[in-house]
């Protein structure tokens, strides 16, 4: 049962990441389409994006130690995010999401860097809020002492 719970917990984490990155990529793709004067997104492209994000979720959780949630943003975390950004960008080129447009691909890489940095910062802020809450509850607990 514990093994199943661990699997389920990892799977939820991966799916959460897949959704997060899929929507980030889809946003950039939608903006690119708009700039090109196209007002639609392809189902095939969207399927490629979600599958890529899902696969990358596995890589990030199992191979790269869930680096976005790391306590400090060090060389290891920056290296891991650089690797993910490169893989996403390379796949976007190979799958032709941005019509193999060099400028759009470079912009996509920069956009991904901003996404990873934002996500890492969000996790840090979340932990900082949680720390404050924990210490407030600790003080309240101590004050409840009979």
């Amino acid at each position, binding site marked *: 049962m514990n093994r199943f719970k661990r699997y389920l917990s990892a799977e939820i984490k991966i799916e959460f990441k897949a959704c997060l990155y899929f929507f980030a990529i889809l946003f950039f793709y939608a903006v690119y389409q708009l700039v090109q004067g196209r007002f639609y997104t392809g189902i095939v492209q969207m399927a490629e994006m979600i599958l890529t994000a899902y696969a990358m979720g596995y890589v990030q959780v199992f191979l790269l130690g*869930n680096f976005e*949630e*790391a*306590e400090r943003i060090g060389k290891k975390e920056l290296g891991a995010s650089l690797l993910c950004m490169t893989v996403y960008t390379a796949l976007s080129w190979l799958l032709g999401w941005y019509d193999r447009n060099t400028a759009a691909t470079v912009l996509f890489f920069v956009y991904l860097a901003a996404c990873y940095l934002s996500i890492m910062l969000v*996790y840090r802020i979340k*932990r*900082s809020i*949680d*720390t404050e809450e*924990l*210490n407030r*509850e*600790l003080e*309240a*607990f*101590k004050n*409840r*002492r*009979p």
Partner: protein
Amino acid sequence: MKITLQQITEGKEEVIIRYREMTEEIDGIIKYAEGQGKRLLAAKDGQQAPVRISQVIYAESVDGVTWLYTDKEVYRSGLTLSLLEGMYAGEGFFRCSKSMVINIYCISRLRSMPEKRIDVTMSNGEHVTISRHYAKALRSILKGDTE
């Protein structure tokens, strides 16, 4: 409530509570006095010594032996961690891992860590990392859900 303090030079320290009716406040004072005085017997340098529960910062089990850590001393206890946790949960004893029980009242600071773990800084500066499983229980206790 009138409070009378009397300093003594010999004899045992005692607290006398004179009351008309047993109120929640009086009961609290009694529990506080009892809690402060609660002691458990432990050994130091082969000698048995009473240790105040409130002074135990944490207890650790190493190779089947339970050690009690106060601010300055380390005592050997005959009680298992499960017993310590069960007997003194009301005094703030909390099982934070398979081999450790900490006194919540001796925590100086808590820090949220990745994967919902908690880093605990005890009053003696010692750091303890609580896994997600035990962290969930600690959060419930702090919220007052279970004690």
